[in-house]
């Protein structure tokens, strides 16, 4: 049975790393940016982003730093690390290979070879 959440869950690291590549953000801003870029077509519970951020932080792909702006609540701002950039490149390549393979299977590309 098709479950869109599984697809999102499997690719959240790629999405988060891609957003953070364009600049450091706090969790809420990362979500807003994902919504802006996707036209809010990816729906998931906002809180599920944080375990993913913690996992990426543990793996050294992003780093989080608390910022205390005057008159505002302290926020943890995440930035991508060089290891994160390398991981993103790797995941992007894998994603492109995967999507182009799927495209060939479903007949979206002209160079699909019948067996």
């Amino acid at each position, binding site marked *: 049975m098709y479950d869109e959440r599984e697809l999102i869950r499997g690719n959240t690291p790629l999405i988060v790393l891609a957003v953070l590549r364009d600049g450091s953000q706090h969790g809420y801003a990362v979500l807003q940016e994902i919504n802006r870029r996707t036209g809010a077509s990816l729906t998931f519970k*906002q*809180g*599920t982003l*944080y*375990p993913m951020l*913690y*996992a990426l932080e543990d793996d050294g792909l992003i780093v989080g730093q608390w910022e205390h702006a005057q008159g505002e*609540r302290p926020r943890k701002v995440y930035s991508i690390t060089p290891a994160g950039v390398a991981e993103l490149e790797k995941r992007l390549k894998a994603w492109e290979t995967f999507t182009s393979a799927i495209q060939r299977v479903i007949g979206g590309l002209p160079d699909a070879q019948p067996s």
Partner: protein
Amino acid sequence: MLSLLSRTDAACTEEETACRQHARVEDYLDHLCAPLVGSLPYARRQEIRREAEAHLYTSIEEYRESGLSEERATEAALQAYGTPYRLAQAILDTWYSGAGSGTRPAVYSRTATLRAFACFSIPTAISAFLVESYVLADIGLERVPWAVLWLLASPLLAGVLTGWLVPVRSARAVVNVMVLLALHGMVAALLMLPRREGFYFVLFQSVYSLPAGALAAFLTQVVCRHLRRIVFRTACAR
């Protein structure tokens, strides 16, 4: 006078609403952090709480700007954030997964193995001593029912104790320890027992003690987790 009174009433209501909203968010954060107690250190839990709090208040503010009342904005923000218990489980999964010798899971794995070792080493030593005494005294284990009972029950008891002390991956910890103990037992049994009895003892450890201990640890771990959830849900319902 009337206008002054109504202004004061309005201020009170506003303050009350803010208090209720604050209490609702605090309650939600309590539910989010409660399952993490005992697994994540205090500082880490506080960090998670502060981050979630900042997120929720920003989200509430945004819902309010879109025209929702304070109360509805709070509820909408909490709902969008997710079920606290499920989020806590996801955080725990993250906390206990990963790779690398210097990382937390490795440290956890070492602690789990040490605990399993503490639970299994003494019963195994007693079993070895019993086998050795009865075989060398030529009494035969089959003639001493309580010794047989001990041999059968001790891995189960040790497994239950391990499952209780090791909340995650207890069966793996038992397997790690039992493989070591079986290897050690093999050397000891072959040196100290007649060859046939030594072989039977090692076989017994590998075929019965290891799987029985691991299964007992796993089942106890599952039961303990289930009990913790029930306790947590009961606390949530109050």
